[in-house]
């Protein structure tokens, strides 16, 4: 079996591919951190946003949190299987994660549809502007994750590039962590 450069060349003691993912995560911390902290500042400065925020659906948000936590669990089980060299099992777990991503997006679409039909559009006020921007950027990451996971899983099923199962997992867990903070910010701290 060929040994990929991504796992053998390393100056830091971390395989190059994994180090690259850590840098991706660091840049994502700045992207989401800037957006979420801007929301926190404005939310504190605007007590009246509580009136708009009262309309978000706590249980829909909680269900989607559960979906993402479950998808993270299957992603890390896939990583475990990949390290044992079982590409087929890893692929199965990754497909489950992909299913979780699709379910998350489906629920989010229904949620947004009902909110937009009630007149709470991105232009309704500052709260809804942040709501759609933050959750929307996060949803784009979920979609991107699902696409990448599909290609990694297809490879893994053939026993190829198993190290990527872990790398895509690290990204996916980060997307999960972002939602772990978005959920209380948008749905609970009313």
């Amino acid at each position: 079996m060929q040994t990929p450069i991504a796992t053998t060349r390393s100056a830091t003691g971390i395989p190059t591919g994994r180090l690259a993912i850590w840098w991706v995560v660091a840049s994502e911390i700045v992207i989401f951190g800037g957006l979420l902290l801007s929301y926190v500042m404005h939310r504190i400065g605007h007590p009246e946003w509580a009136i708009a925020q009262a309309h978000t659906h706590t249980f829909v948000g909680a269900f989607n949190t559960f979906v993402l936590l479950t998808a993270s669990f299957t992603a890390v089980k896939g990583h475990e299987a990949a390290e044992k060299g079982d590409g087929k099992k890893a692929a199965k777990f990754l497909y489950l994660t992909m299913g979780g991503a699709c379910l998350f997006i489906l629920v989010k679409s229904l949620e947004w549809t009902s909110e937009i039909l009630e007149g709470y559009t991105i232009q309704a006020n500052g709260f809804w502007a942040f709501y759609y921007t933050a959750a929307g950027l996060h949803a784009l990451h979920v979609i991107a994750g699902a696409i990448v996971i599909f290609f990694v899983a297809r490879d893994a099923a053939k026993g190829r590039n198993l190290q990527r199962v872990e790398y895509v997992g690290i990204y996916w867990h980060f997307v999960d962590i972002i939602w772990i903070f978005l959920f209380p910010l948008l749905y609970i701290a009313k």
Partner: protein
Amino acid sequence: MSEQDRDTHQHHPDYWKIYVALVILLAISVVGTFSGILWITFIMAFGVALVKATLVAENFMHLKWEKVIAKWVLGIALILMVLFFAGVSPDIMKDRGLQWVNNADLAATARGIPDEEEPEKGAPASAPDSTKAAAATQTAAAAPAAAPFSPETTFKTVCAACHGPEGEGNGPGAAALNPKPANFTDPAFWTDKTDSVLEKAIRQGGASVGKSSAMPAWGSILTEAQAKQMVAYLHTLKGK
């Protein structure tokens, strides 16, 4: 899988246990909202979020077993975020400082709080009182006092920042403003303004009567009756 990767990376805790813990924590954060007590909700929501994020980062992302340099990479990004918040938040979280007033912000707050006469749609019959009470609490920082309404106290605590304690248009905030705030002691000010125009300017802001938008809309903290009393007070400043 290379030998090196295998050697550095063979830690697999019981993921099922961690997953169950995460789901229980999620349930706790939702249950917190039923308490109806703000600080319990906040601690349960954000405290739990921190614990959940740590569990995921340490065990699922394997940060617990990762080389320290990866933690530095992430840590520096987080420190940058703290710097960002510390530097920017004072200007965003407040609507006025010693030398400035954010009128757009104040106006947005005023627009966002429902008027007493139009309670929120679908609210129960008792809502107007509670909405009003909530609005009063939320604007407590801007309102002079919960005690009986006094036009003079209101003027000295709210208006004087720009219009000056004697209404001469020379308050501490005036320096930064152009055009300058109105001077109520100047007879010229009173030549072309009716009481209803002044009431409108007070409740809906200067821009609503074609004057400077630097005059905020105070409709969220002053009722129409109170605005009338304010105008009556302004008359007493005339020619002082």
